[in-house]
């Protein structure tokens, strides 16, 4: 294992210390239990957004804490859900009296821990709603799985719903908006290489030099199929078609197209993917009205990409364009 770390067990703590020194204008860090809150929390009268998950997906979620996006993020150990005590303390720290929305990615651990935290917070008189993101079309959604995973759509949801909360919408309106986003966004990813969890010390899976995994999760969970590597255009087609067919996206739809890097893939390659993804969308009569390109929901040093499409309307476009000031996303301020 070659990593820029000191000790595996100190990775998350030292990352938080770095964020604390780097962004005192944006966030405050609480230790033991660990969570990140926006510098001006709690914002009185505003619905607060709390998310969280295992570490290793940076900038998600801690990099999205700030004006116009999240009020708090709870980082777990690498690829491990945070714990209810973190979520409860974060929820209390950001509650401005208008209620708190938990944005939860659909993984067994995350859902269980957030459910326990929501119960505890309600017990302390805080109005809490939870929304579960499950946008990964690579997973068959059936009674016999834990359901679809929450992946790239999470980033878009946190931005758009964050803007709605900033605008002063109620907890119910903000939660309904989040559910609407979940119902009209879909994602699919692929990997060229594995990632190495620091405390595991070796790659999570073996992927031969000439093979790729289609439908990969953001923790290196295997996906739909493994096959010989193909040119970028063909890979883009293999990601875009299941997304388009699943919702389905139809001719005339306006979308936000998000081409994400898994952590080890350079931007030069993401633009190659983006170029082809737009071509495929247009061929189906789908109009790309907004875009996001870059590593925003990563899987440590995994090389690969994921594509997310979200069906937009004028409200979603307005909220997407609204100012945001976080370490990971920033415009309009």
């Amino acid at each position, binding site marked *: 294992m070659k990593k820029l770390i000191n000790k595996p067990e100190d990775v998350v703590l030292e990352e938080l210390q770095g964020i604390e020194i780097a962004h005192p204008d944006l966030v405050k860090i609480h230790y033991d239990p660990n969570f990140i809150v926006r510098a001006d929390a709690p914002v009185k009268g505003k619905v607060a957004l709390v998310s969280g998950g295992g570490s290793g997906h940076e900038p998600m979620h801690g990099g999205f804490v700030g004006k116009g996006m999240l009020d708090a993020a709870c980082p777990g150990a690498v*690829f491990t*859900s945070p714990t209810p005590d973190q979520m409860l303390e974060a929820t209390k720290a950001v509650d401005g009296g208008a209620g708190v929305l938990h944005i939860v990615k659909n993984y067994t*651990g995350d859902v269980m821990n957030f459910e326990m935290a929501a119960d505890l917070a309600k017990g302390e008189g805080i109005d809490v709603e939870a929304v579960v993101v499950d946008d990964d079309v690579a997973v068959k959604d059936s009674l016999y*799985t*834990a359901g679809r*995973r929450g992946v790239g759509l999470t980033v878009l949801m946190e931005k758009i719903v964050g803007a709605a909360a900033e605008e002063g919408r109620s907890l119910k309106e903000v939660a309904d908006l989040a559910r609407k986003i979940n119902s009209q966004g879909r994602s699919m990813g692929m990997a060229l290489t594995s990632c190495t969890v620091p405390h595991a010390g070796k790659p999570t899976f073996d992927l031969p030099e000439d093979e790729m995994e289609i439908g990969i999760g953001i923790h290196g969970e*295997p996906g739909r199929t493994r096959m010989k590597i193909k040119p970028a255009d063909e890979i883009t087609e293999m990601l875009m078609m299941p997304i388009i067919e699943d919702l389905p996206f139809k001719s005339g739809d306006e979308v936000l197209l998000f081409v994400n890097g898994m952590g080890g893939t350079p931007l030069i390659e993401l633009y190659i993917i983006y170029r082809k993804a737009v071509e495929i969308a247009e061929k189906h009569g789908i109009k790309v009205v907004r875009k996001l390109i870059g590593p925003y929901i990563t899987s440590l040093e995994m090389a690969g990409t994921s594509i997310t499409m979200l069906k937009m309307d004028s409200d979603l476009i307005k909220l997407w364009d609204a100012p945001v000031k976080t370490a990971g996303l920033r415009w309009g301020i």
Partner: protein
Amino acid sequence: MTINNDDVIKWLQTYDQVITENKDYLTDLDSIIGDADHGANMHRGFQAVVTKLPGVQDKDIGSIFKTVGMTLLSTVGGAGGPLYSTLFIQAGNRLNGKMELTLSDWAEALEAANNGIIRLGKAAVGDKTMVDALTPAVQTLLDASKDGTSFEEALHLSADAAKKGMESTIPLVARKGRASYLGERSAGHQDPGATSSYLLLKTAADVWTKE
């Protein structure tokens, strides 16, 4: 034979050592069908538990169990955190005020623990989870407590039943947790949660029957 709070403390301390020794093994099992963190998470949790034990060693067994449960809840994370936390809290609720355990106490406590896990995880036998190891072990203990089997023998029988249950997860297709994303590809691999559950019962049998 009865088990007192010293025995319970010894069991938990030994389990921490067993987890330390098997940390890489559990993580390896988890990296095949999960996300390569079960060994590290359990290790972090039980290291924290061990530091809490001196503060509760004179308390009743129910309090010891509940302290373990609350410690695991805030240190383990993932799905294993709430599930193992539930195991100890539910069992602890059955053992309130007890300074000694009989076979039927132990059987009933583990039955409550397993039921709590089934409720929280919405899992059934055959889903390739820790429930596959715990359920046959609980049944063995309940049977033993009714037919006059000695506590010592029942502990060994329950560890054997958990081992068989753990091994039964190998051919199964996972229906819960991260392994379920693999579908058919999860078959052929032993479940890490069933493995750590087996080790918990195996450690109880080893520690509590040692003369």
